[in-house]
């Protein structure tokens, strides 16, 4: 014992507790192992890499000059098809997601089982990619816009429904209680109590999803979903790279324009 007894070591300040540090180190170790394992076992053919610059140069050389004359013949129609597919798909998705979100929102459906079923629908539709849904619907309905539209709609349910359900759950109970006290029917409560509160979120979600869906529907045709992707697939299979270039330019332009349009809608309306 030191005579003073109070001169202890200066207190050590630590940001994380010992278990936290162990967890973090374990996590870093896990990441390193995963990366090393992936890099060592993944199959990369180095011979393909040597001529990558030439191949890339060749790619752009073949695309140029872009074959604009193909636009009025095929691409315009495909572009319209893509836009309509995305829009109709979003409308259908919003309707379906609205129903599911009513089922998921705990302040509307007071049944744990139904909530869970709704949540499962949201997760399952979201986990399967639009392209995979498109493969399914092409097998069902044959190639074309119908398959693409349903793929877009079904995949969007998960995303749209999740945010809609959150918006419904955040609705203030005041107006609802007032309507209940006035003896309003359940439908009237939904339309006059919840809808005005959910509407801004609803519009924001719908436009945001429409933006995503335009991008998605532009490539759905690669698996038979109609639209620009179909034109792209045709051009790729024919090795008409100048037409591929045209479709890529059109897709790029459409994506930029939808981004501007949705930004404008967000600023003006919502």
């Amino acid at each position: 014992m030191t005579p003073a007894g109070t001169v202890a070591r200066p207190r050590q300040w630590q940001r994380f507790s010992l278990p936290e540090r162990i967890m973090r180190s374990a996590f870093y170790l896990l990441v390193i192992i995963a990366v090393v394992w992936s890099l060592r076992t993944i199959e990369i053919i180095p011979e393909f890499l040597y001529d990558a610059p030439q191949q890339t140069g060749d790619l752009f050389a073949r695309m140029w000059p872009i074959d604009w004359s193909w636009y009025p013949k095929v691409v315009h129609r495909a572009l319209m098809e893509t836009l309509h597919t995305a829009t109709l798909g979003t409308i259908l998705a919003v309707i379906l997601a609205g129903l599911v979100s009513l089922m998921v929102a705990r302040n509307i459906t007071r049944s744990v089982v139904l909530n869970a079923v709704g949540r499962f629908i949201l997760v399952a539709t979201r986990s399967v990619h639009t392209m995979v849904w498109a493969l399914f619907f092409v097998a069902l309905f044959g190639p074309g816009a119908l398959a693409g539209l349903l793929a877009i709609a079904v995949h969007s349910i998960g995303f749209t429904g999740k945010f809609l359900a959150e918006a419904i759950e955040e609705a203030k109970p005041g107006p609802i209680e007032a309507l209940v006290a006035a003896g309003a029917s359940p439908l009237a409560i939904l339309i006059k109590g919840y809808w005005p509160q959910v509407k801004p979120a609803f519009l924001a979600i719908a436009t945001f999803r429409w933006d995503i869906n335009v991008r998605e529907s532009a490539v759905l045709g690669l698996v038979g979903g109609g639209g620009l992707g179909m034109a792209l697939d045709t051009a790729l299979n024919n090795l008409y790279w100048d037409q591929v270039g045209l479709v890529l330019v059109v897709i790029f332009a459409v994506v930029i324009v939808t981004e501007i349009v949705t930004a404008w809608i967000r600023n003006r309306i919502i």
Partner: protein
Amino acid sequence: MSALPHGQPPRVAFPPNWPARLGMVVLVLYVAYASTILDLTWNRFVVGLQQGGKFLARMFPPDFAHDKVSLLLIGMTESLQIAIVATVIGIFLSLPLGLAAARNLAPRPLAWTARALIAVFRSLHPIIVAILFVKAVGFGALAGILALIVASLGFLSKLVAESVEEMSMKPVEAVRATGSRLLSVITMSVLPQVIPRFIGFAAYQLDSNLRNSALVGIVGGGGIGATLFTAFQRFDYDFVLTIVLAIIAIVMVGEIVSGWMRRMFQ
């Protein structure tokens, strides 16, 4: 009792909203018009649903035969590797690109160039990038990795740039006042503010790359997507179901892991 003043109509609790009604009519008309453009007919839908029955019957039960499961495992492993490698490289590249795009740190021309680059990356669908890379580096996992790196760069760099622009400039000024070099300013004042949020984004990106790695295979980018597309083309629908179930399972596991990661670092 009837104290309503003369000449004024009685107030209606919920007056009809004519613009909204007009909007609904326009919407219905648009749906009808677009449906004819897309050649959507009820008949086709019904025929499809009937086919759906046959289709589902061929999908059940999912095929867990030995050779199929080994194909599935090979594809899944490759997809997982593509996702991991693409996410890690994407994370390392997105930090400098995001810093370059932050308008409060980078000089103006550099910031605008970086922003334009990010905008291009973001607007290209991973599938399209994958097509271009398949042409450039050939079929296989490498094309998939490169395509997903581009997708990760678009998403992560934008978020890095945004969080750098939102951060407090005080630590930056303090470190600059000591006469530090640019690198020290970044590591000592910028990164400590940005990294906690960045890990959340990175976890989300791993998630998203896992989903997309199931996709790039359709155009030749390797992984489970290639297996899935082949199974579809061979009408091997029971194997298709196995693959789809496996994809859902791995995406859900990925979601759990990334949620766990986010909680640990925030």
